[in-house]
């Protein structure tokens, strides 16, 4: 019964989203009068989807194996928290989560502040377009990926959730990431709504906060994914340039560009066309990512069950939404006013930075799609992986990071004369800090490492300096704090990435019980290996003692789990971590004579890689929640 209610609610959601679009876009005359109806429809729409998810979760918790999705992804031994997370653990359910979050964004947009005149019409039309996006996706679900589909005859026991997903991170990574992906639909919708209404720069002021919020979620989602991969996948890597990782990074880069472009459009009334285009591209990359992951054209560790029919549908969806958006763009975008830009003015540098960000996204797109294109041209099969991306990404990133530092000191409309002296300071400090870190703290550094560390400090120090420039007026600090925090976060990430890549130590070693080995300065001793059991698995747990200079600093317990005979064994790594370094052990094969193969890693400053995004997120939150109220308070 419950799954049928869920099914009906999906149809209700389909209907409400269609109405939301039609009425909002003005198929009914004088749509502005009916704006209340449209906004209320979005509330009904969200509620329907919310209850639908509850229905699915309920079916999971009650082990209803007559539902195909539940039989495929759960079983009675699965702990309850994973039964709930399994709602979005596979294709159909994750799509349900996707459209629910999309509807939430629409709801928030609908009930956000009321504007006057034409601006309110832009908002209304944006809500309508969100309705169209929802409509397309719900059609997709109902036709090809229905989570409530029944299974007959139904089995006594389900297949269970992929062991890799039986982890707390499953509870938070997809929701946060998806919130970011679908959040980009808001600036997308606002941009198109603006194009078909007054077609000027005003939408930028509205869109900016929405864009930052979506960007926040995307940042968090990507960082969570990286962190999860690190401790779950058992090999100590944190970014693999896997197609799905790329599918999240590309919209993030473009969203970052969009945030910066919207600043210029809002404050200087420039680059409106570019901002609109970025808004369209950002969400389109989200859609493209969805296509790549669910159509089966690319092999990825994240691939959901692939199906060309689903691929066709998503592609059609992209055709309608992105194609439609670009057609409207081509027809309606105004030629930018021919204004010459001062070479080192803020608008000029922001534009340059955006170009680098978009180039990075473009390079990632080329690399990700290249194997596909080669296969299509019958030219064989190739792989494009980390060696390529790690090399190629430096081309836009290195200049980008350099110009970020310049941009921080720039002013609007003119080249800042004071900039040169400020920059000299920062450059000097960065060079000193960089060289000290590289050569004194770590003993040696090759050219790339040195450049990386210097650039990290360059970003950090330039990020911090606006706080200390000028008067220490709280109001002024709050104004620059978001940007400072975001750039500081970036600097930390760059430092973490550079140091861990250059100075990390990795190797495999077979140890007998009681034997130890050195990893850098640390001593790892394999004490013993015991058998153990979990709710739905059997495990071998090793005890590894780590000591430094004879003093024991930690004991960690890497595990090898067997969930069932059909799946390969899972490694749960033993990790000892603090901000300065991570010590990582993964349990490998049991060799003869009581010895085991261990995968050992020493990773300095690894945690900075995720601390950075956290600081960026705080910066974004300050911008959304604190800036306006606090500056009002101060004045």
């Amino acid at each position, binding site marked *: 019964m419950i799954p049928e209610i869920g099914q009906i609610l999906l149809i209700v959601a389909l209907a409400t989203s269609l109405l939301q679009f039609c009425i909002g876009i003005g198929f009914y005359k004088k749509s502005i009068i009916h704006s209340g109806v449209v906004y209320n429809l979005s509330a009904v729409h969200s509620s329907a989807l919310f209850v639908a998810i509850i229905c699915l979760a309920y079916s999971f918790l009650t082990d209803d194996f007559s539902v195909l999705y539940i039989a495929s992804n759960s079983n009675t031994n699965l702990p309850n928290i994973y039964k709930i997370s399994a709602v979005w653990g596979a294709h159909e359910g994750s799509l349900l989560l996707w459209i629910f979050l999309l509807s939430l964004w629409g709801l928030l947009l609908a009930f956000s502040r009321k504007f006057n005149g034409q601006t309110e019409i832009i908002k209304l039309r944006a809500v309508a377009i969100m309705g169209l996006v929802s409509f397309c996706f719900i059609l997709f679900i109902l036709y090809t990926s229905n989570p409530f589909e029944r299974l007959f005859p139904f089995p006594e026991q389900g297949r269970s959730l992929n062991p890799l997903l039986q982890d707390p991170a499953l509870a938070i990574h997809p929701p946060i990431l998806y919130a970011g992906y679908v959040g980009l639909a808001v600036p997308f919708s606002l941009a198109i709504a603006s194009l078909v209404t007054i077609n000027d720069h005003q939408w930028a002021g509205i869109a900016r906060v929405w864009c930052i919020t979506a960007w926040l979620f995307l940042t968090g989602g990507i960082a969570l994914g990286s962190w999860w991969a690190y401790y779950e*996948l*058992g*090999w100590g*890597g944190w970014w693999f340039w*896997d197609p799905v990782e790329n599918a999240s990074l590309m919209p993030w880069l473009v969203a970052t560009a969009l945030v910066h472009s919207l600043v210029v459009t809002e404050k200087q009334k420039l680059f409106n066309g570019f901002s609109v285009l970025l808004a369209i591209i950002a969400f389109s990359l989200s859609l493209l990512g969805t296509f790549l992951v669910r159509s089966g054209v690319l*092999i*990825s*560790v994240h*691939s959901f069950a692939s199906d060309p029919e689903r691929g066709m549908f998503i592609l059609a969806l992209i055709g309608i939404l992105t194609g439609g958006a670009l057609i409207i763009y081509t027809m309606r975008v105004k030629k930018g006013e021919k204004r*010459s*830009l*001062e*070479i080192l003015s803020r608008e*000029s540098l922001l534009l*340059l930075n955006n*170009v*680098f960000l978009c*180039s990075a996204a*473009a*390079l990632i797109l*080329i*690399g990700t799609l*290249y194997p596909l294109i*080669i296969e299509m041209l019958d*030219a*064989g*099969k*190739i*792989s*494009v*992986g*980390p*060696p*390529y991306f790690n090399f*190629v990404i430096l*081309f*836009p990133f290195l*200049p980008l990071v350099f110009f970020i530092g310049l941009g921080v000191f720039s002013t609007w409309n003119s080249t800042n004369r004071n900039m040169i002296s400020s920059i000299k300071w920062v450059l000097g400090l960065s060079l000193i800090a960089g060289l000290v870190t590289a050569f004194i703290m770590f003993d040696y550094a090759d050219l790339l490492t040195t450049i990386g560390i210097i650039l990290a400090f360059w970003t950090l120090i330039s990020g911090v300096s606006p706080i200390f420039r000028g008067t220490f007026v709280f109001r002024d600090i709050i104004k620059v704090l978001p940007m400072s925090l975001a750039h500081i976060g970036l600097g930390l990430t760059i430092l973490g990435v550079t140091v861990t890549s250059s100075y990390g130590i*990795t*190797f*495999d070693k077979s140890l007998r019980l009681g034997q130890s080995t050195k990893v850098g300065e640390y001593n790892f001793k394999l004490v013993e290996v015991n058998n153990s059991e979990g709710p739905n698995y059997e495990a071998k747990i090793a005890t590894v003692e780590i000591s430094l200079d004879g003093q024991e600093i930690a004991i960690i317990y890497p595990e090898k789990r067997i969930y069932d005979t059909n799946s*390969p*064994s899972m490694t749960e790594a033993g990790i000892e971590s603090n901000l300065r370094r991570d010590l990582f052990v993964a349990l490998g094969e049991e060799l003869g*004579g009581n010895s085991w193969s261990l995968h050992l890693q020493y990773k300095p400053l690894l945690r900075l890689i995720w601390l950075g995004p956290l600081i960026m997120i705080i910066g974004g939150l300050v911008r959304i929640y604190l800036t306006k109220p606090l500056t009002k308070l101060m004045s």
Partner: protein
Amino acid sequence: MKYLITIIFLFLTSNSLISADERPTTDQQEMYQSIIQEVRCLVCQNQSIAESNADLAKDLRAQILDQVIAGKTKYEIKNYLLDRYGDFVLYQPVFSEKTLFLWISPIILLILIVGWYRKISN
């Protein structure tokens, strides 16, 4: 008798007395680690052979370790794999006419950006 037992004992524990030739040096470990991360597992195609638990991955890892210890260069080992499995097996695309555009695109992009920037700021 004690002498005999000692000899047998030493013989049995000589597992740890493997000649230095069969254990990789630190540099060799580094090269080995960096190579196996660049080789795609053909069975579980979304993993490198470093991470994969597939039998083929284990076999290839062992083969590569042997070759590293025997003194082969990275280039030689990569060619060994390419000769047998083709371009697909390496994560770094071989530079050829097929991948020309792939490898040149960052440079082209940079040139375009520089050219465009100079145009708009004049």
